[in-house]
């Protein structure tokens, strides 16, 4: 239940049910990614994924983060399929003893999910459709860790 790859929407309340109940948890951080419409003509976003490898890749990233920051809990949800502007794309949640650990682990998870989890985003606009290009800054972000 710690990693979910699904087409359906999710709620924070649902994902965080029972989260961070360990007595040594002092801080939790959650991040949610949302379909943003920069130009006002986005019809929807299409997220393609590699079933099986997604889950394995995310679980590997979660295991790394959990060990490095001694997380007391960690959850990741990532959606695929057709998403409207404003829709939730994914979320991560981390729980740790102190706030710095919870924040760092959440940022680490996001940096690795961006570049190492097999999802591909296509933006379908009134003016045409385009695959979202990976940014070199996303790859560079990994050097921080």
């Amino acid at each position, binding site marked *: 239940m710690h990693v979910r790859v699904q087409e359906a929407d999710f709620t924070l309340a649902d994902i965080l049910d029972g989260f961070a109940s360990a007595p040594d948890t002092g801080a939790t951080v959650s991040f949610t*990614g949302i379909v943003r419409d920069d130009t006002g003509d986005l019809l929807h976003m299409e997220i*393609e994924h*590699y079933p*099986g*490898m997604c889950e*394995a*890749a995310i679980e590997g990233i979660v295991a790394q983060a959990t060990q490095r920051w001694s997380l007391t809990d960690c959850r990741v949800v*990532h959606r695929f399929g057709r998403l409207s502007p404003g829709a939730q*794309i*994914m979320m991560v949640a981390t729980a740790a003893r102190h706030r710095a650990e919870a924040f760092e682990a959440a940022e680490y998870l*996001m940096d690795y*999910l*961006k*570049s*190492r*989890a*097999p*999802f*591909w*985003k*296509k933006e379908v606009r009134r003016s045409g459709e385009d*695959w*979202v*290009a*990976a940014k070199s800054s*996303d*790859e560079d972000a990994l050097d921080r860790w």
Partner: protein
Amino acid sequence: MIDVLYFAWVRERIGIPRETVTSEAATVMDLVDELRAREERYALAFADLSSLRVALDQELTEFDTPLEGVREVAFFPPMTGG
């Protein structure tokens, strides 16, 4: 017999999401060369390897990795998760 999977614009360019190929390729690069030689659409999809990534049995790897024992190869552009 290897299952070959294509994602995102690689899939669109080649026109199919997956296929099973019979190949004697020793490395990923050898397999890429075999595919490139097949048809124009493959040659186009594999024109610039710097814009491609490859996974063997669902693990990210490099183009010079041997294929021995591999059951599934996937080609795709850099990932854009998150």
